[in-house]
């Protein structure tokens, strides 16, 4: 019995990543991190800024996301996101750039609690990327 399932990450421009030997995925779901294994119940949730961890036979990978939607159905995990970056591609300067953008945004006034929360989350996550 294999314990593997399929993952598809798509962004608006292209299909970002397709893998079918994934054993576990941890996504930063809106209400906390969520680990997904094979035969998880069908679920729809959305993402807050954070890190997607993919554990698979062919190696583990991590991606940084800012928002998105996760759908798990029939052992296929689909992640739709407009902002995704491979952690391996984020160097110091890139991280600083992102952090600066996020901080600028958080300094703007007139925001709902929800977006405030998301921005703070984003800054927090970016700070841990080193």
């Amino acid at each position: 019995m294999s314990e593997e399932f399929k993952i598809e990450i798509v962004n608006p421009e292209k299909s970002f990543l397709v893998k079918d030997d994934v054993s576990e995925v941890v996504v930063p779901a809106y209400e906390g991190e969520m680990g997904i294994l094979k035969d998880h119940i069908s679920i729809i949730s959305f993402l807050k800024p954070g890190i997607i961890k993919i554990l698979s036979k062919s190696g583990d990978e991590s991606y940084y996301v800012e928002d998105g939607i996760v759908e798990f159905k029939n052992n296929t995990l689909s992640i739709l996101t407009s902002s995704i970056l491979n952690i391996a591609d984020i160097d110091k300067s890139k991280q600083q750039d992102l952090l600066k953008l996020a901080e600028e945004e958080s300094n703007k006034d007139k925001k709902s609690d929800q977006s405030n929360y998301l921005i703070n989350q984003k800054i927090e996550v970016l700070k841990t990327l080193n």
Partner: protein
Amino acid sequence: MASLDDLKKRIASVKSTQKITKAMKMVAAAKLRKAQESAEKGRPYSEKMNNIILNLSSGVSDKENAPKLLSGTGNDKVHLCVVMTSDRGLCGGFNSNIIKKAKSYFSKILSEGKELKIITVGSKGNDQLKRMYGDKIIENISFKESKNANYFDADKVGKIVIDKFESSEFDICTIFYNQFKNVITQIPQAQQIVPLNSEDSEDNTSEESYEFEPDEDEILSNLLPKNISTQIFKAMLENSASEQGSRMSAMDNATRNAGEMVDKLTIQYNRSRQAAITKELIEIISGAESL
């Protein structure tokens, strides 16, 4: 009757025009391949998004409390039309087809006594519409700087639409764009995006029930604005593929027409050259005879 010199000049000028149209065709063909590729790559995203929304909206139990973006405001007095055209010309009927479609829709709305607001995306559409509907255009967006259609731009348009919806400036929103079928055929489309028209999408909702985290309503109200940007992005991708396709076939036609013209002019040129020679010969012979 044009002189030999005039004809020669005209042939040269038509030939150089032909060179330009040929080059433009080549460029359009290369760009078309790229645009088509990105349109194909972008498809999974919008399809998945559509599926999720269909699954979600079929699960919404009370239509009364459903998000306004899904169920509409209950009115249909103010129509917002987003007309998406290109920023460049010389692409055959591409822009005028969209405009034609949009204009017929506008006059239908106006004759029903409803209010009309227009957002134009792309400068060509603005140029063509401002004469007749200048007072109705509330915004003109153009992405001349960006080389390819990208999601960032689409999101900008989407945000404008959502802002206007939230300040209840319109009830129904329709986007106009060209759907890419093949190089010769592009179909102008009018697609309603607010409220979401789920009738025209095929029913492939599964019976399976989902678990939602947080609840359905919150997910829906988060997803629907994203869906608008996605739909606009899809329209932009289709549009850019259509534009290049349309330009390619227009330039192909132009090149062929120029070739025909060169042939015709060359025949004319040769005839008049021959006529001049014959005339000269006659003059020489009759001159020799008279001696």
